[in-house]
């Protein structure tokens, strides 16, 4: 099972949340809004490529739109392997968090 880095997990989660409409721009926005991370397009696509190379994502090209000046979009979707990798990462974190109490009150 692949070990996922932190940013890779964020990207996979974003793709999962977006279900049908996961291409570059909304993925970037999702991460920026929810996780509060600034993402450059280069870092994003490098990660997307890497995840696709590990077969955790699959992609396809869709129709161009006028807002993009006639350029096509590349959509992403999680594969089954990607889902199980995410689940495994979450389970690992859960196990680590169980019973941990942080000063300042928040509790797992």
């Amino acid at each position, binding site marked *: 099972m692949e070990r996922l880095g932190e940013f890779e997990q964020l990207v996979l989660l974003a793709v999962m949340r977006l279900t049908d409409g996961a291409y*570059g721009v909304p993925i970037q926005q999702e991460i920026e809004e929810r996780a509060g991370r600034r993402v450059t*397009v280069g870092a994003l*696509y490098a990660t997307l490529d890497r995840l696709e190379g590990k077969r955790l994502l699959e992609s396809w090209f869709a129709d*161009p739109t006028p807002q*993009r*000046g006639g*350029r*096509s979009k590349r959509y992403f979707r999680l594969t089954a392997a990607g889902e199980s990798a995410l689940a495994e990462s979450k389970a690992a974190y859960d196990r680590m968090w169980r019973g941990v109490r942080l000063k300042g009150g928040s509790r797992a």
Partner: protein
Amino acid sequence: MPEPPAIAERLVRWLVGGRDADAVAGDLRETYHARGGSALWYWGQALSCAAVRFSGHRRVLPGLGQDFTHALRSIRRNPGYALTAMLCLALALGVNTTLFALLDSLYFRRLPVHDAGRLLLIQRTTTPFCSWREYLEFRDRLRTLRAASTVMFSGEAHVGPRTYGVVAECVSGNFGAVLQPGISAGRWFASDTEDAVVLSYGFWKSKLNGDPGVLGREILLERARLRVIGVGSSTFRGAFPPFASDLWVPTGALPSHGPSGPPVGVIARLAPGSTRQSADAEIRLLDAGLRADPGSARANDPAILQPIRGLLWRRGRRVLQPVVSLMSLLCAAVLLIACVNVANLLLSRAAVRERELAIRTALGASRWRLFRARLAESLVIAAGAAVLGVVAGEAAGRALQAAVPSIPEEGFRGLAFGIDARTALFLFAASPLSAFFFTAASGGRGHARRRRVYSVVQVTLSLTLLVGTGLLLRAMQHVERADPGFAQERRLAIHLYGPPAALRMALDRARSLPGVQDATLASSLLGPDSGGCAALSAAAPVRRTERNTVEPNYFAMMRVPILRGAGFTGAPGVLVNETMARASWPGDDPLGKPLWIGCDAAQRTVAPVVGVVRDTTWALDPVTEPAYYLPLDEGGGDRPVSLIVRTAGEPYEWSRPLIEALAMVSPDLRVYDAESIADAMRLAFWETRWRAALLGSLGALAILLAAIGLYGVVSCSVAQRTREIGVRMAIGAQPVDVQWMFLAEALRLTAIGVAAGLVLSAATVRLLRGFLYGLSPFAPAAFVGASLAWVLIAMLASWWPARRATRVDPLTALKYD
């Protein structure tokens, strides 16, 4: 809506590449508008796309795999042209690889020992050898260097019931410790006096079949019983590459070597912590002390240190150098012809692929991309050619190896050609380079005309080679028929080495044998040899001359007439040849005039000229050099001497009895092999024969390649003009007319090529002047012969495709697109 900065967008596309470039650029554009159009932001994002470029999962050159798959597919569809191209290139590469191996072993290769950079040869400017006494001084007194000695000799080794002729090295006991050549079984010598022998890996593998129980076996060499104590490592073949030794023996085990033996080569290793400079300084100091000795002959001949690279045997280098230079030129020419051939083949493919290229260009492929596609195909061909080239190179190496026994120089017998790591590296570097060259040569427009030009170039080059070969063959014939000036029939020569007393005993013994009509001694078998110096007066400049030291009856026995004066009578005297008499005392009678003989001003002798003899030609020189003759006692020295006998019958009938008789004469006498003078003469021409053979085979290869090229051009022409043929035949042309159409084209190209080739030959044959022994390089026979030969070849090469043209069915041809 404001447009994002165009240059930044270009950068994004270039960095990302491929289809994703569109997607990324589109994403950026969307976000750009959403963010209100900040150019700075856009540039930041554009630069971050470099992460995409260098991420591990993206190929740096997109589409490279595609190029190669496409190339492989295209080759599979048309294997014929690819195979022809590979074959042509492989032949040329194989030949060049063998040449590289030769050059490498002549000039660059280090010894295959541990830390070879710290090995040095101690030698003098006039000779690579030192006397045994000098070696002992070096061994005992040098601190920065550890010195070992080695000298090559040949002999017969008896292993069990079998006898082998071997090339061996007689080495000092510390040879293994100094050179550190490694060992594959057993050990090296521990002392000078062990009765032991170390076999070479090659000898053990080939002659003893890799016998695992070889250690401890007994070998008889020069009447010494030696035990095998080790087998050398697989890469080490001796201290003087490319000569290969079969075995190593310590000096103490062979009585004819060591203090009373021939001069030795001294190899030294820098002691740990010493530098080259400190070693140089120490040698200079020590050697100055040695040379200050009154008995030393080396007053003007300091010892120097030389790193061991390539061929150390200076004479061998000098002998091979001109041949090698010539070969290099030729191999380059052959490679050029082969590349042109391949370019031609690619061009003919390009003609067929024009439509495909046009579509690709229309779809947006850049010139670079198209070049890359063609380069991929060439690289596949070059890779195939490299693999085949290894085979071709091995074959060429083996062929050279098989021809080596025809060289009389003993050391060359151990020469080993073959493909090793460095030459293979050269091969695999040369093939992509040539791929690049012929891809570039086959691009662009104007295919048909370019093909014709290339074909003409091939004819030109191969014609030049053919002319050169003809000239060399002519020179070879001339030299072999020339009269050397001394008698050759029924003369047998045996090479001896020993002190003058032993030589005299050998002479008497030989004369007493039945079947020997007369015998004499000479230091140089085939006429005077280099190494002498003479001056006309004490103050006159010393000039290098040739010399021979002979027994007084040499002239009578070898039928070299004494033209004036008398021979040696026991009184001091020197004989000179006609050339020297003419040059040194022009118009005057040389008899009675004094001559100062000797190269070393401090150690000269004076002798009166007592006679003038007829010139003999050392048949390889068109010009006779001045030479003098001295009686054997005075001139002697430490050189081998030839005992020449006149036999009653066939010379070789007497070689065995003679050798056996001479071996009994004295323990100080070393007896080498016997050969008839006729054979020695023939062997002396090995240089000419080799040159002619090399040039001839390369020339033949070049012609083969060029003929293939011509065949290709005509074939393509036929294919391209199929419709035209159909029309002509439909109108009423006879098959003969169609055939003639193409033959005429081939002849036209050949004619231009031959004309250009004649011009090129005229310009370059002067390079061969050094090899032609006085014959003029502008021999019409060679030029005319080569031209006619090429015309014939051209007709043959184009006959087949021309014939195919007549088989064209007019109906199908007219429908041909």
